[in-house]
Structure formats: structure tokens, C-alpha cells
């Protein structure tokens, strides 16, 4: 208990803590919280994502104080922030590049989970809450991208909202309802602004659930085996707080590079042209973090069993996220970490290449080879989750697992170093 430790609380803190055990909870969740002692730097990205969410909310609130969500004034109000608001350029560039950083962090976090099997029992709900956060992030980022009301904002809003028209019978009605009119316009911008302000707090709530689920069983680890006793773990503080701070400082360097020296790298030049409903840009391209879904969407150029191509494309794009959602039940292998899965380890990297290929396809106009690559990559994405993952659990022979984390850490310190390393060589 908090008051059992000398020096931690004055009488006031103890008085409060007796009634509202805030310090005791923090103590329990940070100080006593047992964390596997072998976490690598790939485990830094969870806390980084949390910090990035806070940075986005803080910069976003300051932007909201200066921004005007009206079709007539939005573009100029953003320029006003860039030119006349004190450090407005800094806040806006931090927010705009922060979105890219946030997605980069979250994607690394997700792929780390896929590599080390972090979604397996008993962490299924932890994983699913994570996928819900991703979906909410996509919605939030999309609506945020619309707010500057540049050409790409306007046309991205038009293209993406029009996807709902693929739904049979009620589709067109839904689109009109989303727009608040018969075209993307002032009401659309207003509601996107309201939702863009609301959703981050919904994300914050789901992150809280994600953390509660995490603290139930604690972090997975690079070996993918459970903690067997106190020798396998370290208290979160100070070991992982200091490691997270080190990772954070390195990350902030990368983030600062983009904010200060290449702030428009991730944006499209067209978005510095005010929205013009009469003129469609040559290539309508989403932000980089949405390119793979966009590629899947456009890869379905054929209708199937009476389902039109457009609807099939929409289903496939949303389906790619739904597959992530049910991964805990698609992967039938009892072994978590890829270190002990000789085949899956390779299949994992094929999936990474596949997703990068989808990103490339999404960035290019759908002509010639791009379409073919997109269709193959889309097919492979589905094959990976629907065929390879369930099948590998049956046919793959996992390597023997170490008896405990402490044993593995200890052995790699002394004489068994060589095999432990060669095990991972391709």
C-alpha cells in the first residue's frame, strides 16, 4: 500500500489516498506491474502511440481555437493559422505530421503484434480493442484531412463518402444523409469538424479499455511464453519507463525532422489549392497510411455472383480490417512468437511486402501493371489470413520453447549465445 512506503506520501496524500486510492493505483499499475524482462525496443511503440494521441489532442485543441469550419472560410482560416497566429505554423505542422507519425507507430505496433502472436489467448480482446482503435483512427484522420478544405480534402471527401452508395437500395440515401445535402458542402464540413473533435476522445476511451485489458495479463514478449515467476519479470518503473523515455526521445528527433525540415512531405500539393467543386484533380490520392485499403478497393474491377464490382471493392477494403479483427481465431498455432515458427516467420515478411506493394498500387493511377499487381496483392492478403494462417497451425512444426524467460535470458548470456542467434538467420 502507498502509506506503507515511507517518503511517498505526506499526510495530505495519505488522507486523499485513503478515500481516493489514486497513488495506490498508480503504484500498483506502474511500480508493481510485472513486465517481462526481455521486451525489445519493438515494445516501445505502444506507449509511443499513447503519447502521440495526447500530442494530437493537445495540438488539435489549439488549432480548433483558430479554425473556422465553414466552406467559405476554412481554407483562409488555416492560412491565417500558418501566417498570423503565434507559432500557429508549428502547431499545425505538428498536428499534420503527427497524424503520419501516429499511423507509422500504430502500424509498427500492429505488425509487432502479428510477428510475436500478441493476439493469442488470453489477449484476444486486447487485440480486438486495438483494431477498433485503428478503425477509429482511420475515420478521424480522414475527417481531419477534409478540414483544410483544399482540393484533395474536398475530392477525398467526395470519393470516400460516395463508397456508401455501393450499398444496395439505401446506399444513395445514406450518402445524402452523410453529406447533409446533395453534394459535399458546408454541412458536410461542419459535421466532419464536430466528429473530428469527438472521435479522439472516443479513441482515448478505447485506449483506456486497451490498457485495462493489457494490465490483466501483462505484455506479451519476444519469446511468446508466459511469465513463470518473479525471476522472469521486472517492475515497469523504472526499467521500462526509462526505456520508453529513451525511445520517445529518439522518436521525437524523427518527428521534429519532419515538422521543421520537411513539413509538407506527406501532404499533396493540390491541398494548398482551395476546394473547387467544378474541377477534379488529375489523381485523387489518399494520405499514405490509407493507400493499401484504397488499393484493395480499386483492385476489384469485376462483379461476382451478382455483386457489382463497386460493392465488392468496398466489402474487400473493409474486410481487410475485419480479418485483422478476427486474427485470434484465424491463427490456429498454439505458439505465439515467430521465433519458434519456422514457416510463419517467412509468411509474416511476405505479408509485410504484400502490404507495401498494396501501398505502391494505391499511390499510382490504376493502369496496366498497377492493376495486375493490385489484384495479386489483394488476393494474397486474403490468402494469408484465410488460408495460410489456419493451415500453418496444422502443418508447421514449431521449435521447442524455452522453459522460462529467465532461463532463456540467462543462457543467452553465457554459452548458448551462438545457437540462439543463428536460429533467427534466414
Amino acid at each position: 500500500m502507498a502509506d506503507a512506503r515511507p517518503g511517498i506520501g505526506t499526510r495530505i496524500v495519505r488522507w486523499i489516498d485513503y478515500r481516493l486510492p489514486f497513488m495506490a493505483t498508480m503504484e500498483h499499475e506502474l511500480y508493481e506491474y510485472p513486465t517481462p524482462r526481455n521486451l525489445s525496443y519493438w515494445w516501445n511503440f505502444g506507449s509511443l502511440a499513447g503519447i502521440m494521441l495526447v500530442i494530437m489532442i493537445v495540438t488539435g485543441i489549439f488549432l480548433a481555437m483558430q479554425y473556422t469550419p465553414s466552406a467559405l472560410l476554412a481554407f483562409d482560416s488555416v492560412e491565417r493559422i500558418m501566417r498570423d497566429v503565434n507559432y500557429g505554423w508549428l502547431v499545425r505542422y505538428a498536428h499534420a505530421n503527427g497524424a503520419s507519425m501516429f499511423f507509422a507507430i500504430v502500424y509498427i505496433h500492429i505488425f509487432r503484434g502479428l510477428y510475436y502472436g500478441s493476439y493469442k489467448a488470453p489477449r484476444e480482446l486486447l487485440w480486438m480493442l486495438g483494431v477498433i482503435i485503428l478503425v477509429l483512427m482511420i475515420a478521424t484522420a480522414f475527417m481531419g484531412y477534409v478540414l483544410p478544405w483544399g482540393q484533395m480534402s474536398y475530392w477525398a471527401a467526395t470519393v470516400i463518402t460516395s463508397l456508401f452508395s455501393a450499398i444496395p437500395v439505401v446506399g444513395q440515401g445514406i450518402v445524402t444523409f452523410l453529406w447533409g445535402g446533395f453534394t459535399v458542402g458546408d454541412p458536410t464540413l461542419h459535421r466532419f469538424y464536430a466528429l473530428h473533435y469527438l472521435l479522439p476522445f472516443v479513441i482515448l476511451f478505447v485506449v483506456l479499455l486497451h490498457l485495462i485489458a493489457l494490465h490483466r495479463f501483462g505484455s506479451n514478449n519476444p519469446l511468446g511464453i508466459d511469465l513463470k515467476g518473479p525471476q522472469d519479470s521486472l517492475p515497469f518503473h523504472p526499467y521500462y519507463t526509462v526505456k520508453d523515455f529513451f525511445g520517445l526521445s529518439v522518436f521525437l528527433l524523427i518527428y521534429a525532422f519532419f515538422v521543421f525540415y520537411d513539413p509538407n512531405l506527406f501532404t499533396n500539393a493540390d491541398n494548398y489549392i482551395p476546394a473547387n467543386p467544378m474541377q477534379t484533380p488529375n489523381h485523387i490520392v489518399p494520405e499514405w497510411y490509407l493507400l493499401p485499403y484504397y488499393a484493395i478497393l480499386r483492385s476489384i474491377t469485376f462483379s461476382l455472383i451478382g455483386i457489382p464490382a463497386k460493392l465488392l471493392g468496398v466489402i474487400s477494403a473493409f474486410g481487410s480490417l475485419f480479418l485483422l479483427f478476427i486474427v485470434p481465431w484465424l491463427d490456429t498455432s498454439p505458439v505465439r512468437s515467430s521465433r519458434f515458427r519456422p514457416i510463419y516467420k517467412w509468411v509474416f515478411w511476405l505479408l509485410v511486402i504484400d502490404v507495401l506493394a498494396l501501398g505502391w498500387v494505391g499511390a499510382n493511377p490504376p493502369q496496366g501493371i498497377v492493376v495486375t499487381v493490385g489484384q495479386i496483392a489483394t488476393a494474397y492478403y486474403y490468402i494469408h489470413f484465410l488460408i495460410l494462417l489456419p493451415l500453418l497451425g496444422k502443418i508447421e512444426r514449431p521449435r521447442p520453447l524455452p522453459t522460462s524467460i529467465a532461463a532463456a535470458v540467462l543462457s543467452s548470456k553465457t554459452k548458448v549465445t551462438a545457437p540462439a542467434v543463428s536460429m533467427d538467420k534466414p
Partner: protein
Amino acid sequence: MMPIFTARLLLAAAALIGLLLLAPMLSEAQETPPLPHQQWSFDGVFGTYDKAAMQRGFQVYKQICSACHPVKHLYFRDLQALGYTPDQVEAIAASDQCTDGPNDQGQMYQRPCRPSDPIPGPFPNDQAARAANGGALPPDLSMIVKAREGGPDYVYGILNGFKPAPAGFQVAPGKYYNEYFPGHQIAMPPPLSQGAVTFADGTQATVPQMAHDVATFLAWASEPMLDVRHRIGVRVFLFLIVGVGIFYAAKRKIWAPVH
């Protein structure tokens, strides 16, 4: 384990970046030649705007471009960033007429501009601009460098890209052939010619010189906070590098007993 994992990830990231860089090149290579890359004073980590070039560029804008193109997001007061004194800015402003009002009689009226006024454009609205330019709308130049792929190189390329059309290329009436303009047919007549302006500092007013100077001015107009951004960025980097060092040392020290 980690080095191999990291190396693979770096490779994958490099491949992605390569693809992303290659993608726009592939799609645009068929249409227009690559823009000639210029050396800009504001390139790089320590880059700043060349004030003399900006003043010459502003002169080119004022005497030539401003006949058709507005700089909607600029105020006269912003011109102090070009190195003008407040008095000079006031004089520059006063040489233009701004619309103010309504007055006590409910009338709009003209008066000399003040530093706090936005720089007035050549046309009262887009329709008037189109009517005066054969249906084409001269774009706002205060955002042009950020609103075009290639930025200042694009502006420089367009201003130097007027050429006789190649044999067999039909140029529509009222259009001009430009090497770097998408589709090659631009509604803007070649705006610059040798000696079109006389620079006070004695710089030769060649077309490439004027193009370079006006592109520098327009780059500033698009991104006026770049100087400050670069200056603060260096300090932020120094601060963060020290931070990385401190946290790395702390991490090593705290983890030493358990490794």
C-alpha cells in the same frame, strides 16, 4: 534476433520509400520533362530567404505579375520580412489604392493603402479576372509554390519554359506552348523578357535571373515562417540530441544490474 529483424524492416522501408518516390516520376515522365533543379537560398537545414533576391522578386511581381495575379494571403505589413523598414512598407502601401467603407453615407470609397491592409489584387472577383483573360483564371500566387509539385522549381520552370511548339503540335488560339506546363498549353503569354524591369542594385534583368528572384519571393509568400522554422528546428534538434544522450545513459545505468 533484433539486428536481423531491424535490417529487414529497414530494407522494407527503403523499398517503400523508393516505390513512393518512383511512382510520381513514372506517371509524369511521359507528360513533361523533369523540372530543372535550381539552387535556392532557402534549401537545407540552415536555409534562409535571400532578402535581396526577395526584394528584386517583389519588384518583378509588382511590375509584371500583379497585372493579372493576386497575392491574396499577403498583407503590406508582411513585406517587412523582405528587409524593408516600416517607413518603406508604409510608402509601398500608400502607392496602392484600397477599398474601405462603408462610410457615414453608406458608400465604399478608395483611399491609399496602409500596412495593415491585404495587398489588393488586380481584379475585384474571379469572374472579372476570367473575363479579362480569355476565360482563364490567373491563379493566386501567394500559395503557388506550395500548391504545385516541384515548388519553386515549377515556378522557375514555367517562366523559362516558353518555347516554339514542336512540329505537329497544335496550339489552341489564345494559348502558348510551355515545356513544363502539364499538357503544354498555357493561357499565360510569356511574361518575362530581357530587361523588362530595372533592378536598383544593378543586377542584370535576364529572364532566368528574374524568374529565380520572383520564385524566391513567391516561395516566401507561400511559406513566410520558413526562416523561423529552420532557426527553431536547429535548437530543437540540439535539445533533443542532448535528451537522447541523457536517456540513453540513464537507461544503461538502470538496466546494468539486471542485464
